[in-house]
C-alpha cells in the first residue's frame, strides 16, 4: 500500500498530507497513530508522546444520550469543559446532545477533545469533513491557533488543497510513496504535484508572514525560516 515513506515531525510544525483517493493517506495516519503496524520499516514515537487524535467523523447512534460536556470528560474527568469549548469557539454547545450536532459543530467538538488532552502531537484526519465551505478556512485557523497555544506538532490529512496550503508549514504529497514535499509554495509548483492534481488547482500564494487571532486581527509578525523544514 505504502512504500518509501520517510517523515519526521517537529514540535510546533504543521505538516499536511495530501494525495488522491487511495493514495494511502489514512494508512499513513493509522501507522503513525499505532493503530496498525508497518510490514517493514519503523515508526518511532518519542516515549510518552501525548497524542491528540481527531477522527474524520464520529457517528453516534442516536439511541445514546450523551452531551458534548460528557463526551469531553469521558475518560478524562479533569478536563475543564468550558475552557475546552471556548478554545474552539463552541461555548454554547456544552449541553447539546452529540447526535444533534451539525457537521461543523461536530468537527469543533472533536477538535476540542483532541486539544483538551494537551497533546504534543495533534493528528487530524480530514478536519473539514462535513463542514460547509465558509467554515473550512475557520477550521484551519483554529488548528493554527491551537498549534500556537499548545506548541504541539500537527499532522493533518486533507483534501482542501488551496485552504491547506495557506495554513501549513510543510506539505507532503503522497500517492503510495512520497511524490513531493516541502513548503506549500514549492509543492504547488512541483511537476509531480501538478501531475496528480492538474492545473485546475490555483496554487495559493499567500505570503505567510504574520499570524491572525480568531477575529482575523494580526498578532505578532512572524516569518517562516525555510531552513528549519528539513527531513
Amino acid at each position, binding site marked *: 500500500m505504502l512504500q518509501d515513506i520517510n517523515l519526521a515531525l517537529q514540535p510546533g510544525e504543521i505538516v499536511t498530507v495530501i494525495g488522491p483517493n487511495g493514495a494511502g493517506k489514512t494508512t499513513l495516519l*493509522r501507522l503513525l497513530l499505532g*493503530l496498525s503496524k508497518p510490514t517493514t520499516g519503523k515508526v518511532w514515537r518519542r516515549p510518552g508522546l501525548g497524542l491528540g487524535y481527531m477522527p474524520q467523523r464520529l457517528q453516534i447512534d442516536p439511541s445514546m444520550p450523551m*452531551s458534548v460536556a460528557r463526551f469531553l470528560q469521558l475518560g478524562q474527568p479533569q478536563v475543564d469543559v468550558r475552557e475546552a469549548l471556548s478554545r474552539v469557539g463552541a461555548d454554547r454547545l456544552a449541553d447539546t446532545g452529540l447526535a444533534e450536532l451539525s457537521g461543523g459543530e461536530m468537527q469543533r467538538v472533536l477538535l476540542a477533545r483532541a486539544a483538551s488532552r494537551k497533546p504534543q502531537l495533534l493528528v487530524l484526519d480530514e478536519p473539514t469533513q462535513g463542514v460547509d465551505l465558509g467554515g473550512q478556512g475557520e477550521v484551519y485557523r483554529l488548528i493554527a491557533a491551537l498549534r500556537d497555544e499548545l506548541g504541539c506538532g500537527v499532522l493533518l490529512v486533507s483534501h482542501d488543497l488551496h485552504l491547506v496550503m495557506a495554513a501549513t508549514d510543510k506539505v507532503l504529497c503522497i500517492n503510495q510513496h512520497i511524490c513531493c514535499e516541502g513548503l506549500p509554495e514549492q509543492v504547488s509548483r512541483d511537476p509531480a504535484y501538478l501531475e496528480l492534481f492538474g492545473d485546475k488547482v490555483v496554487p495559493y500564494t499567500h505570503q505567510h508572514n504574520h499570524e491572525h487571532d480568531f477575529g482575523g486581527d494580526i498578532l505578532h509578525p512572524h516569518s517562516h525560516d525555510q531552513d528549519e523544514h528539513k527531513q
Partner: protein
Amino acid sequence: MTQLSELLQTQFLWFALAAGLLVALVSGPLGCFAVWRRMAYFGDTLAHSALLGVTLGFILQIQPTIAVGASCCALAILLVYLQRRQKLSVDTLLGILSHSMLALGIVTVSLFGINVDLLSLLLGDLLAVGGQDLVLMAIAAAVIATLLYFLWEKLLAFTLHEELAAVEGVPVEKTRLALMLMLALLIAIAMKVVGILLITALLIIPAASARRLSRTPEQMAIFASAIGCCAVIFGLLASILWDTPAGPSIVLAAGVLFLAAQLRPNR
C-alpha cells in the same frame, strides 16, 4: 385474591422473583450497549447457541448454567474473530449462525435423547428456579455488575469511536472481549427467566424504553434496569393471576412499558 396471598407464602415464587430481578438489573446496562452498538442480532445468535450448551452440559455432566455460560463465551470469541475476516456482512453472518445454532441445538437435544422440556428451555421456566440456580445467577450477576462498574468509561469510549478510544489508550480488544463475555454470562442466567427465544427482548426492550427518559448514558442504564425490574414484577404477577407462562408474560409487560414510554414527549 386469597389464592394470591397463599401463593405469596411459597418459596418458589420468591425464588422466581429474585431470579427475575437479578437478571433485569444487569440486563439494563448491558442492553443499553446492545442498543447503542446495534448488537440485537448478535445477542440473538449467542442466545440461540445456548441450547447447544445444554446438550454439551448433559454429555459432559456439567451443571447446565455453567455449560451454557462456557459455550456462549466460546461462541462469542468465535464471532468476534469471524466478523473480522468475512466477506459477508455481519448481518448475514449472524443470520446464518443464529438459526443454524438454534436448529443444531434442537437436533442434538433429540439426538442424544436428552430428557429436557424443550418448551421450558425455549420460553423459560422461571417458576422452577431452585436455590442452586439462584446462587449461580447471583454470582454471574455480581461478576457482570463488577465488570460494568470498572469498565464503564472504557465501554462508553469504545462504543463512541473505537479508533479514537484506541489512540487515547483504551485497550479496545480487551474491552470488546469483556463486553462479549458479559453478554454470554447474561444469556446463561437469563435462559431460566425468559428462555432462549426471548432473551434478546429482555436485553433490548427495557433499554429502548429508557432512551426517551434519559439524558445521560448512566441514566439510561439505570432506567433500563428499573423498567426491566417492573416488567419482571408485572409479568410474574400476570403469570400467577392468569396462569400464563412467566417468560412471555415478562416480555409482554416490557413491551407494554415500552409503548407507555413512547407516550412521553421526546427529550
